[in-house]
């Protein structure tokens, strides 16, 4: 029982990370048809925003020493701010461009952010101690897991409920859902397009910051490549979920987390090193049978 619950919690917490990442990508894709590959670098930026620039192996903590109730809003604001800035400075100019051009612009932006961090912090991973109180273990249903893992799951569930309520109940959410489905029509009807897009970027950036906090606390390191692996899985989750479908992205994120965790358990020890190959194999199978994704979003053509 304890062993099974352990797997369930591992799957949920890994899936949570992927789901949060996928949501951040799907939100922007929904309103702009932009696959934002800079998302992973925004995650890394949020971690490094807590440190003073230095090339030493041990990080010099700056905002990271703040109490959690200041630290978390600070990180979320950094993520949202950077993301909105990238919209205003870069992506706004590509609104009429085709999706491939926008995607390339996002790669370029990602490199700019990454090399900016490289310049200030060097490529050496740094050890950080972020929210250390979260590493103490707790015991639930016979499974022992770090408090952080539990909090990750709870935070993700809270974010999902909050985002659903936001999209369903607020004026802004209503405009965002309409714009995500048919941006041109929404604009013709007077929906405030720029605000909707900036809102999507702000939310996406805040989600990146949430991932940054979780990853930073979990791994105890700051690494300029730390967003990349989550970004890759999150991107795959948005594709499997049906590009632009928020619900699909979340479901696929959790599914990937579950597959990866289960593979880790059931694969023979020699094959475990190749876990990701098996995960990607499963992804290919899904896409063979449902090339449009699990829940395909409609209106994938019309843009500004």
């Amino acid at each position: 029982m304890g062993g099974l619950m352990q797997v369930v919690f591992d799957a949920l917490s890994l899936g949570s990370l992927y789901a949060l990442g996928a949501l951040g990508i799907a939100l922007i894709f929904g309103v702009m048809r932009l696959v934002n590959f800079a998302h992973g670098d925004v995650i890394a930026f949020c971690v490094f925003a807590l440190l003073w620039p230095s090339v030493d192996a041990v990080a010099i903590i700056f905002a990271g020493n703040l109490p959690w109730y200041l630290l978390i809003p600070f990180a979320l604001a950094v993520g949202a701010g950077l993301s909105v800035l990238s919209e205003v400075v870069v992506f706004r100019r590509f609104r009429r461009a085709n999706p491939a051009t926008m995607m390339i612009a996002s790669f370029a932006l990602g490199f700019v952010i990454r090399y900016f961090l490289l310049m200030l912090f060097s490529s050496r991973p740094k050890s950080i101690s972020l929210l250390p109180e979260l590493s103490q273990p707790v015991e639930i249903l016979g499974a022992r897991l770090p408090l952080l893992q539990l909090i990750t799951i709870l935070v993700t569930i809270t974010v999902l409920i909050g985002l659903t309520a936001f999209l369903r109940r607020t004026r802004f959410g209503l405009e965002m859902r309409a714009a995500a489905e048919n941006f041109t029509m929404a604009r013709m009807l007077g929906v405030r397009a720029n605000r909707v897009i900036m809102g999507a970027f702000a939310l996406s950036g805040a989600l990146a910051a949430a991932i940054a906090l979780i990853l930073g606390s979990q791994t105890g390191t700051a690494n300029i490549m730390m967003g990349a692996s989550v970004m890759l899985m999150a991107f795959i989750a948005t594709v499997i979920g049906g590009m632009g479908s928020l619900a699909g992205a979340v479901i696929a994120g959790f599914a990937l987390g579950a597959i990866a965790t289960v593979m880790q358990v059931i694969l023979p020890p020699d094959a475990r090193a190749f876990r990701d190959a098996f995960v990607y194999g499963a992804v290919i199978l899904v896409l063979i049978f449902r090339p449009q994704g699990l829940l395909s979003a409609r209106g994938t053509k019309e843009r500004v």
Partner: protein
Amino acid sequence: MSDLRADKVSVAFAGLKALSDVDLSVASGQIVGLIGPNGAGKTTLVNVLTGFQAATEGAVRLDGQPLSGLKPHEVRRRGIARTFQGGRLFRDLAVIDNLEVTGVGLGQSRAAALAEAEAMLDWVGIAPLADRIAGTLPYTDERRVAIGRALMGRPKFLLLDEPAAGMSAAEAQDLSALIRRIAGEMGCGVLLIEHNVGLVLGLCDHIVVLDSGATIETGPPAAIRASEKVRHAYMGTAAETDLPVLEAGLEVEA
């Protein structure tokens, strides 16, 4: 009393004239029909009237004020609403959300938009559909939702682009009744583009016939029915379905 007027409107696409010197006017409470064979320029004229397409020459005026240079949503805010061929609803949104977001786009508060959306669904006669996802509706209901959406904010003018396409005779009858109420009860001026000529002849006070971008006839239904030019225009494209439609319309009305 308002009036919407196109004065000598011409539109050229890369040298090709889609419209040349077309005049048209609609007054409050009036139902004006716009007919003509495929490719006559009907939708182009609606696009010009609603700010989707700039006129190469000529002007559109609302109560004497030129509307040139206004974006579609600005024209909409001045009280000129339209529907699109095929409805073009937000298919993933609930019916009520489709109307509500339109109200919000017009600058209403969310509460006001929701209240008007509910009242509007009731008025159009589709209140039970409020929570259905728009993309799952049958064709005719989708059209009604599109009309309800266009009526949000009580526009002065409503431009309907082929609202009866694909409808059965009975459904077209219901639609006629709705259009009469829009003009009669709301005092809204209606411009009706329609391939179902019978519907147009039965419903409109005044009809404009376009062919190849030019006005070939205007007048009350009786004059249009009697017109040789109109008959000729439709005969000229006899390969299409327009001819039997016209004939059917003439029989119904005669």
